[in-house]
């Protein structure tokens, strides 16, 4: 009985806290106007920034905290207290719960000064919904060093309705996408290189025929990316900027027309091919029920469709060598908003938070502490400028700090493929700009239809593209279901957005 009462009390307290949080925020509906007041004051005459009061900067990032992290933070806070009279409190949102917790901590009203944001964390949606403070006027004042490194393109990609709500690092990720393949198996089946989609099919079929108990390639229950690389290899552009997009355009056209995957001209041919591959056993008949994302790394799959980063980490983490073949042309730099940091509306220490962010992004000692730990204890730098972790179970590299990754500070890890620096250089030199990367889908007006369309794709298209159903009949059903879900309304809205985007960016 006593225990019951106690647990009840605890839950009452918790409820009161949550509710109190909501209440205090509801009581302050002028969050947005506060910021504008700060920014105007900032632009007038704040060359000398007052740091006499000690501030605690609360930061939320995604990941699981390393055991050694507390020690590193002690070291970090000693430094930041000296330099900025501020300490940093980093809170991790664990991988298991980040999707649900993230919107909750933003709405709970607890003061947060810095938070990780990204396209895949719904940056544009949350920015429109007033979750972050506009910082375009604050950046030159409080982030002078790192402000210089932000490219015009990155600024443009961070802009929502005329305001900048987040600031990205200078890391460059590329749109290169394609098969990551076990090298020993390619040698075994006499394949020198995989340059076309069909050659990849030949490899899959060879493995399916000869390697019992091994999946030639694998997917997880969220669907496959095989349709994405096929469409990307045809030079098409996904409107979300990432794989898994339902709506695409052909950026080569003068006035690109938005179309859904299911209505694309090349789709019947692609589906017929997938049916043939599926029947040949190129992937499991239960691929959509699979939740194991490590199949290639534990040796039960021969290849996987992914990017450069996965190729590098698979080479480091496993005993096998892997080859990577890019199917996407031309090479482009992905949106900088893939990883960025924002200041939530609830922040009380906006200036100091931005100053600390600037410090991390411009001072290598700060950067290395957060990203790699303490030198000698957590990491070693070798003569060839590669970095080695002393014990990755104690301190994981770049654990959650992706939002402030700087290209010049990063080092390749020991064990990464020898060709990596060369490939990185090649991509960097040949990358072409794509103006559509600063376009973002605004689904506010079509949120009902968009949610319904996504559901239809998951239910009908995912099994279809893996050849589990008849390609002709299946496509017909999918198209009909799409229509019922409001595909036309979504298309019209997105087309209007694209037309406007082109007119604005002439």
């Amino acid at each position: 009985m006593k225990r019951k009462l106690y647990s009840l009390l605890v839950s009452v307290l918790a409820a009161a806290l949550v509710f109190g949080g909501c209440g205090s925020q509801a009581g302050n509906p002028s969050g947005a106007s506060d910021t504008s007041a700060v920014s105007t004051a900032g632009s007038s005459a704040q060359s000398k920034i007052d740091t006499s009061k000690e501030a605690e900067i609360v930061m939320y990032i995604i990941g699981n905290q390393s055991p050694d992290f507390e020690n590193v933070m002690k070291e970090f806070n000693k430094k930041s207290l000296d330099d900025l009279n501020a300490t940093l409190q980093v809170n991790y949102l664990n991988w298991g719960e980040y999707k649900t917790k993230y919107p909750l901590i933003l709405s709970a009203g607890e003061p947060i000064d810095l938070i990780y944001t990204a396209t895949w964390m719904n940056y544009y949606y949350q920015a429109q919904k007033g979750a972050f403070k506009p910082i375009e006027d604050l950046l030159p004042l409080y982030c002078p060093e790192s402000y210089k490194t932000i490219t015009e393109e990155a600024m443009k990609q961070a802009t929502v309705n005329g305001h900048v709500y987040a600031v990205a690092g200078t890391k460059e990720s590329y749109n290169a996408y394609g098969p990551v393949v076990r090298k020993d198996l390619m040698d075994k089946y006499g394949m020198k290189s995989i340059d076309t989609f069909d050659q990849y099919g030949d490899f899959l079929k060879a493995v399916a025929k000869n390697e019992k108990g091994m999946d030639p390639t694998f997917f997880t229950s969220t669907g496959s990316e095989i349709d994405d690389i096929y469409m990307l290899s045809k030079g098409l552009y996904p409107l979300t900027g990432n794989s898994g997009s339902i709506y695409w355009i052909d950026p080569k056209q003068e006035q690109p027309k938005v179309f859904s995957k299911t209505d694309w001209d090349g789709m019947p041919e692609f589906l017929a091919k997938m049916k043939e591959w599926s029947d040949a056993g190129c992937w499991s008949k239960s691929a959509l029920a699979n939740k194991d994302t490590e199949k290639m790394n534990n040796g039960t799959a021969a290849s996987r469709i992914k990017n450069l980063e996965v190729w590098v980490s698979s080479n480091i983490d496993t005993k096998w060598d892997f080859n990577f073949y890019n199917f996407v042309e031309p090479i482009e730099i992905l949106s900088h908003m893939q990883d960025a940091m924002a200041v939530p509306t609830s922040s009380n220490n906006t200036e100091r938070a931005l100053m600390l962010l600037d410090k991390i992004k411009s001072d290598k000692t700060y950067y290395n502490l957060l990203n790699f730990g303490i030198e000698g204890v957590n990491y070693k730098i070798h003569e060839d400028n590669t970095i080695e972790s002393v014990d990755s179970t104690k301190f994981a590299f770049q654990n959650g700090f992706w939002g402030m990754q700087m290209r010049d500070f990063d080092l390749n890890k020991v064990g990464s493929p020898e060709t990596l620096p060369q490939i990185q250089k090649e991509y960097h030199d040949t990358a072409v700009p794509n103006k559509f990367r600063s376009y973002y889908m605004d689904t506010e007006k079509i949120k009902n239809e968009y949610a319904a369309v996504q559901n239809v794709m998951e239910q009908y298209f995912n099994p279809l593209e893996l050849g589990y159903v008849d390609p002709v009949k299946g496509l017909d059903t999918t198209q009909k279901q799409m229509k019922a879900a409001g595909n036309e309304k979504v298309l019209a809205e997105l087309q209007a957005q694209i037309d406007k985007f082109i007119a604005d960016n002439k």
Partner: protein
Amino acid sequence: MIAPAVLLTIILSYIPMSGLVLAFKNFRYDLGVFGSPWAGFENFKYFFLSGTGARVTFNTIFYNLINLITSQFLSMLVAIFITEIFGKTYKKICQSLIFLPYFISWVIVGTFIYNIFNYETGTFNSILKFFNMEPINMYSIPSAWVWIIMIFNSWKWVGYNSIIYMAAITNIDAECYEAADIDGANIFQKIRSITFPSIMPTIIVMLLLNVGRILRGDFQMFYQIVGNNGQLYNTTDVIDTFVFRSLLTSSDMGMTAAVSFYQSVLCLVIILAVNGIVKRVNKEYALF
């Protein structure tokens, strides 16, 4: 005396209800729950678009009903059987074994199921192949999953629920059984005429309590067993999984709240209706 309980109910059950306004709001982070602009019924629309709302509502009620019937019926049987076991150690072992699945999380059960039913290496197909039969691709037969989910749900809950029935059975006056023994009743007659009528109130209360949550799917169970596997949605998609998936990408608070609101209102209607029926049949058994 009753004041603390009233206070707790108000704090825990009534004050949070004001959050339901979120269902009719276009939520903005900077304006908060009460400051956000009104949206009318806009948040409810996506749920009913293209008939999905009706399908998942049907599925939710259907699964809860068959799970309710099967798992409660089995729990009752198990409780009766276990109390009839004489050997003390054997009784304890049986009870523990039946209770054990309750402690296994759905995440692990989901992995079991994948390893049993996946086409290439699953246990089920390995057995079929051993007997020279054609392997079956369970993932292309949505209707099979009704049975799979029902079986695993019972397997997991029977041990736990049977405890409640066992408590009810131990409360039955032993004199009744002694009298029946003297009259020469056999074990089945005793179960039918003494045990069963005596635990009837417990059965009704359990049914009513479960009916109250008939529109809430056991999210963990469905999500861990089915995941994002679109092939099975027609027969396995329940309200909770549908909402979770739809909003994973947009995380619109208003839309989530709208479906919660819909579930709660329908639950209220159903529990009032069922309680009304019970009241008509036998006033003593009704909850209120």
